[in-house]
């Protein structure tokens, strides 16, 4: 009941806020999309030139392919190992690439002073921030797609090569694997938004460190919630609740456990996590735009 009330109040407040600002965002919306798209394309072109991204992607592919050498295990164990290890590789390298791509996007523009040339054109600052974000999303989508395709390919090939036993069959669980990879991409997208927010106010080093901390804490949010519930000291409880409510709940997007154990996947909870993540990212990007707008450039 309280949750439903919160939703209704939130809906009313959001509609009122949009109505109040309609004169500002109404005319700007038509102009913003082409500008955002142009900046996103430039961001993608810049990322393509960075060798480190290509090297990391090749490394992931090599890791995934090398995971087929567990032939001494039973077929069921092999499929489980491949799925669990493959999805973990996609998660780790997806997050690492997100951190190292997003953390450099805005600071690099500021350091190289190319931002002056961009902002001298009819480009608003929020368009610049959103363009950078969309560009990062495109690059990360391409990387996650490549890694997922390789994992699915390895699973399909192994499914053909491994001979099933009467009580142990190789089960590639492809639909669930793809679902888990897609959910992982959404986690990466949320973290990217947050990294861009931090990079508007902090240095690159600080952004990278903060991103790792947020990733670690965001992946343990249910533990933090449990700790908050069991905390005896009021200040500790408050601190933990603040962390729980402010940082993204990245473990909502983590389906590795269910997929590796061939458990039924609750798609509804995945959709809810995406909606929640989208709302969170919108808030984060609004904040990033505000901070970047107020920054002396």
């Amino acid at each position, binding site marked *: 009941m309280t949750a439903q009330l919160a939703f209704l109040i*939130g809906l009313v407040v959001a509609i009122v806020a949009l109505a109040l600002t309609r004169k500002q965002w109404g005319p700007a919306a038509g102009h913003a999309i082409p500008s955002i798209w142009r900046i996103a394309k430039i961001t993608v072109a810049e990322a393509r030139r960075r060798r480190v991204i290509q090297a990391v992607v090749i490394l992931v592919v090599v890791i995934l392919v090398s995971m087929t050498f567990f032939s001494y295990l039973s077929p069921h164990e092999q499929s489980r190992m491949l799925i669990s290890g493959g999805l*973990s590789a996609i998660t780790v390298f997806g997050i690492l690439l997100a951190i190292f791509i997003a953390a450099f996007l805005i600071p690099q523009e500021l350091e190289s002073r190319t931002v002056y040339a961009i902002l001298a054109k009819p480009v608003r600052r929020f368009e610049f921030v959103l363009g950078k974000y969309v560009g990062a999303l495109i690059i990360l989508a391409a990387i996650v797609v490549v890694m997922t395709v390789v994992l699915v390919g390895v699973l399909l090939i192994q499914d053909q090569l491994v001979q099933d036993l009467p009580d142990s069959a190789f089960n590639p669980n492809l639909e669930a694997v793809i679902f888990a990879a897609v959910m992982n991409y959404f986690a990466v997208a949320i973290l990217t938004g947050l990294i861009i927010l931090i990079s508007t106010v902090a240095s690159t080093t600080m952004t990278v460190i903060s991103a790792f901390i947020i990733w670690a804490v965001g992946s343990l949010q249910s533990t933090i919630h449990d700790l908050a*519930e069991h905390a005896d000291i009021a200040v500790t409880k408050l601190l933990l609740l603040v962390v729980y409510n402010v940082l993204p709940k990245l473990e909502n997007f983590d389906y590795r*456990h269910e997929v*590796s154990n061939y458990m039924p996947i609750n798609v509804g*909870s995945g959709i*809810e996590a995406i909606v929640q993540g989208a709302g969170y990212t919108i808030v984060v990007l*609004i904040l990033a735009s505000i901070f970047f707008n107020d920054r002396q450039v």
Partner: protein
Amino acid sequence: MRHRRTPIGSLALLMVGILLMLIPLQESIHKARPHLFDPDRKTRRVSAISIGPTPAVIAALGGFRTLAADLLWLKAEHVWHGGSWWAMLPILDAVTQLDPHFILAWQVYGWHSAYNLHAESETIVDKRYWLDYGVKALERAVEANPDNWEMIFELGWTLYDRAHKPWRAAEYFYRADQFPESKSYVTRLYYRCFERVLDFDRLFPALEYAKNRHADPTVSDDVQHQVIVTRDMEWWTQHKDDPMEHRRQIVLENTARADRAVPFYLYPDNPYWDVCSICGLPSPKGSEVCSVCGAPLKRLSRGGVEETTGVSRQSNL
């Protein structure tokens, strides 16, 4: 360079609105994935002896718990092949604590304790300890995986076959049998529990129950099941009033026959071996002649169709 004033008030209002709208979602996500978000899942005592990782370590691993369990499982494989049976125990304990839904690990954990370590032990007290340990491990497994019929069956089988507690085993066989994907042998084991101890008050209702299960005449396994159940039902109807000693003798004979190990290559429809009708030994499927005695394994049927001469024998279960 345009630099417009930010409408901070309106934007703050918008952000508050969005965040309020997100509140109900987290509650719903928690309810949908209780195995990940149930607040009791980490504080629950998961091991009879604390040899696995602490709850703090498990929590710190976050989403990488499954991967950690897999890596330890690989270690368990090495230890197993090295013959260090006692060293398997802490590894299996850690694996099952890290990933309580890893069914194979639970099965091996329970079986290893109740069978291998029980057999390795020298005193009766030690044997009893490891048998109970295996049963307890499987009970924890069932608690962690109440929706997995194989896990429930495994506990039932250990109680039936190793702990010799058929009434308790019957409860688990019955529970496992309620799952649509359960196999017909589970249904038959349910009434065999009562058969073994001559509990006729429960045996006949259990036979009636088994008769009504797996009754699809188009499924070969169901047909086989019906034949076995009908045979057993008729037999017990005929012999239920025999002198007790006679019935006990028959049960012992039946049990001995059922428990006798059937060579793996004699299981029906095995995809790997053909059995020579002359010497009775296996050769790889598709061989022209027996690899032991050289007798031809294939012959032409009357219609000119090639047939294997491999024999198949039904398990008494």
